[in-house]
């Protein structure tokens, strides 16, 4: 499948997953397109659309927690940031994603 078509397919699958979780694709189209493009590349390489900003460990359990959309496995952390780590998804009420910050999980846990 060509990359553009695969990107479209991933959008279709992911939309159905993130919508009931209260998330949407980031309105930053350039970022969304870039992330999806990287996921298509990762999927071609590993067979799995991993998060483009997380380390693939070769431990199956750990790696399955970073398959996009990985929101269910990092819910509290992402809800606190109103975005997922790579920024492909943001809370539905977010208008300007540039105002959101990446906060490390460690910092988030410490409060």
């Amino acid at each position: 499948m060509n990359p553009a078509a695969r990107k479209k397919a991933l959008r279709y699958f992911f939309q159905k997953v993130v919508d009931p979780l209260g998330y949407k694709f980031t309105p930053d189209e350039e970022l969304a397109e870039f992330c999806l493009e990287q996921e298509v590349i990762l999927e071609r390489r590993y067979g799995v659309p991993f998060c483009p900003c997380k380390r693939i460990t070769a431990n199956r359990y750990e790696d399955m927690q970073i398959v996009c959309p990985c929101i269910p496995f990092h819910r509290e952390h992402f809800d606190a940031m109103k975005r997922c780590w790579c920024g492909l998804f943001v809370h539905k009420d977010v208008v300007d994603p540039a105002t959101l910050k990446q906060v490390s999980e460690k910092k988030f846990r410490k409060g």
Partner: protein
Amino acid sequence: MKTVKVFALSTCPWCKKTKQFFQDRKIPAEFFDYDLAGAREQEELLAEMERFGGGNSFPLVLIGEEAVEGYDPDQFCDLLEIPK
């Protein structure tokens, strides 16, 4: 000036923004793309990231002896003691 090291993934947009941050301000920094490194280099990079409490999320930025996980320009400036 404190030494700056950026651990990145070539696939990660926030790693690109982080690199850009240091390049735009002409702040000397070393950049490492973990995913493009060989197996042995990956081991070394990971060991260093873990030493600073990171290893799973990118970017990880070392400024002096402090680590910042994620793209956080305000914190980069604070640690470098430069204006925001």
